[in-house]
Structure formats: C-alpha cells, structure tokens
C-alpha cells in the first residue's frame, strides 16, 4: 500500500469513528512513514534498495 493510499484510508476511518481531530496527526505520520520507506537500508524482492527512489 502506498503512503498516499494508506493516508486516505486512515483519515476516512478516523472520520467514520468520530476522530476527525486525528487528521493532522495522521498527515504528520504519513510524512514520517514516507521518510522511513525512503531510507537506504530498505531492500526489496527485486534485490534492489530504496536508495535514490522517489517516494510512493
């Protein structure tokens, strides 16, 4: 799941649960998750790494 799609789902679910005030926190978390996924220690099934890759 891309960070963008994850954020959309998370915000929708939070609003459904009556937690609209979570939205800015989830947006901040999404930025943090994007940074985490871009870290160059991440490898993947192709044998490559995330180094230099654009965020999803």
């Amino acid at each position, binding site marked *: *799941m891309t960070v963008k799609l*994850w954020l959309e789902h*998370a915000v929708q*679910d*939070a609003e459904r649960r009556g*937690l609209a*005030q*979570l939205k800015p*926190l*989830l947006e901040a*978390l999404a930025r*943090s*998750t994007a*940074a*985490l*996924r871009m*870290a160059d*220690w*991440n490898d993947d099934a192709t044998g490559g790494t995330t180094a230099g890759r654009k965020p999803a």
Partner: protein
Amino acid sequence: MSTGRRDADGAAQPGARTIAVTAAALRRGETSSLALTEECLRRIAQWDRSINSFITVLGEQALAQAAAADRELANGHDRGPLHGIPFSLKDIFDVRGTATTAASRIRSDHVAAEDAPIVARLRQAGVVLIGKTNLHEFALGTTNEESAFGPVHHPLDETRSPGGSSGGSAASVLAGMAYASIGTDTGGSVRIPAAACGLVGLKPSFGEISTNGAVPLSTTLDHVGPLCRSVDDACMVFRVLTGASAFARATAGQESPVHKEWRDLRGKRFGVLAEYFTAVLDSQIAQRFDQVCTLLTRAGAAVDEVRLPHAADIPPVYLHIVLAEAAAYHAASLDSRADAYTEGVRMRLEMGRYLLAEDYVRALRGRDVLTEEVNAALRSRDALLLPTLAIAAPKLGVPTVRIGSSDEPVRNVMLRLTQLFNITGHPAITLPCGTTPDGLPIGLQLVGAAGHTTDLLAIARAIEDQVGPGKSG
C-alpha cells in the same frame, strides 16, 4: 521567575543534600532518617500544592520506615548508602497496596498486589519511600501537561514545565521533597526532566534494570533509571537497582563510589555529535555546550566531531516503534474507555493503531543500522557528547518554541537529542553544566558503550568535576 524557593530553604547550594553527604552525616549521628523524612514531608506540605509533583504521599508509611531504618543503624545493621534516605518514585511502578495510576483515570481502580522488583531492591537497601510522583499520562509526553492529576510546575518557575515524562520525580528532588527519584525513560523521560531541573539523570543500557512491575509504554524502548543530585548518587542508586548490593554496602559513608584514578580526563577521547544534533539548538544551549567542550579540552581530553550517516532517520524510526508498541498495549482500553484518557495522549495512541506492520519492521531494521553507527562512533572514543535538551524548560501550555527563525513543536524538540539512545540501548547520562541567563538549568549528555554503564558513570564523575554546579568556565 519565582526563584528563591530553593535558596530560601537551603537546597539550592551546589552539592547540598546529596545522598553521599547525607549518608555520611547519618553515620556520624548528625541527623536521623526520621528527621530527613519529616523534613521532606514538611516541604511537600509547604510547596507541593503549587508544584503538584506528587500523586500519592506515603506519609505514615514513610515515617514508620524511617524509624525502622534508624533502629537498624543504631543496632549496627547498615544496609548501605541508601539506608534511611527518602526517595520518591514515579507513579508508574507497582508498590504493594498502593495505586499505580500512571497519571491516568484508566487506572483509577488499580491497586498493586506486589512490589515491582526495583521497589523490592530499594526496600532491601533501606530506602524510605516518601511518595509516588506525577507524570505525563502513561509516560507518553515530555511536558507533564497531560495528566489526570494536573500538570507539574517547575520549582524554579511555575509558569514552566519541569520536563517529562518523569517531571514529578525531577521536581520533587529539585524542591528537596526527596533525595532521589526513580523514573522511566522511553525517549528521554529521565534525562529530559533531569536536564530541565538541573539534576543528574541516568538511562542505563537496555535491560540492565528490570522494567517488570512498571506500566509499559514501549517494551523495546523502555528503560528505568534514577534522578539524583550528583553522579555519585546516581552511581549508588544504579548499583542497588542492578542488584550489586555488596558493592553498595561496602561504599556506605564513603565520599564517592567512583575511584579517584578513574576521574582523570587526560587522554580521554570524546566525540561531539554534529549536524542533526546541532541543527535545532537554542543559541544559549549551543554557547554553553561549546564552552564545556573547551573546558574538557583544557582538562586534557581529546574532543572531535562525529557524524552518524542516518541521524536524520532517527525520528521516523522512533515514532514507528513507540507508537506501534504503545498502541498494542492500549488497544483494549481505547476501545472500551477512550474518554478516560487525556485528549492528546488518546490521539497519539490512536495514531499508532493505524501503523502498518511492514513499517514497524522497517523501523526495526533502522534500529539495527543506527545501533551499528553509534557502536562505530564509540569504537575509538570513551564517550559521545551532546546537549541533553535543545531548549531550556519550556513554558506550560505553549505547543511550539522559536529556535532561530523557525517555530518548532516542543515535543519534537525535547525528544530530539535523547530518543536515539532508547532506539539503540546505549547508556546515557545527563548532568548539569550551567544555566541560561534566566537561571534555567542546561544539561550535558554523555553516551557510553552498550553494557558499560559503570564506565560511563566514572567518566561523568570526572566531567562533573570540570563543568558541574559552580564551574562557570
């Protein structure tokens, strides 16, 4: 600032009321445990209505423990340097027969059936438990503003936070309501309030002190450690908490548990963490830190800069570990009693419930990378140096702080320099190294090799001689 409280009561003088000094006075018969305990209770009655550092005061129990400690000493039964010394305890540890509230209404009906192992060790060492201190609810915060029992106020300036999450612990020691306190540190929660209050705060290596019987925040980041008035005191408490009681007994009444030959800074090598660690730093803190590095060089130490290649990844790694682990612990309560949490803590816990397992695993991989980078930085050095807090004690109720030309979230800034060593598990200690022009304490942080907390304490003792209270540099 509402200063003068400590000055007027005689607890502000550097070195005053340390355990080491008091333990020696006890053994010379110049005071008694009962007198020390009564004085702490008097200060609590006088000052804590405004500071709010205690959730539970164990007055009668403490007086009984003190009387028993005096009887034992009179009969020649000396339990060691903590015998008869009044301590406070963060209200996150179980004490048999008392509530462990974690500063939350969620735990309003809780009464501990047993003592936490660290409480049992303190009792065995003869400590008098004076009371249980206020904290940021469930230790999930750095200011103590979100507590079911109200915020803790800084004893030097009641418009400010004493730091957190062990803020009540720090305030109680600073205000002379206890000689030391035990806190927990998941991202800096011992070191941050210790630095904000001009105390020594120790986070040992991961796993060195049992966290059993403590309400968890994040099980792979949680540490237990003391807040004290000196490095010697921290060393003595650390020994007791790790079970090195024979050593503790042997050093009762000695000037210092740290051998003099370990205190020479000549030839010691220190690495100053650069870039990320100095990028967001109040100018007064930066200025004093530079002065401290100069003092250490003059004392014969070699000081050089060191860079951690993945330092910028520290906040996301920390966030994904702490939120995931905290959310797992709180999930059932969030579903059943969400309204019993303070709003901010509830929202941060709810945020953790949306994290994906794959991102938690990425953060764990990042932990391995960061741990190896800190290990590498320490391979040719005795310790790493950095400020503990990037700012002085912040104003209560103010969510951002101006650093340079930008406004930064207080929470992020307060965690910035401490959270790495919870991720990696390296021992870290803060000691006071000066004050701002407003008289607010500044903390110096030292980081040592994993599993070598005793060596770090010896280095801290040596540095305390150079930069501690009264050394303006």
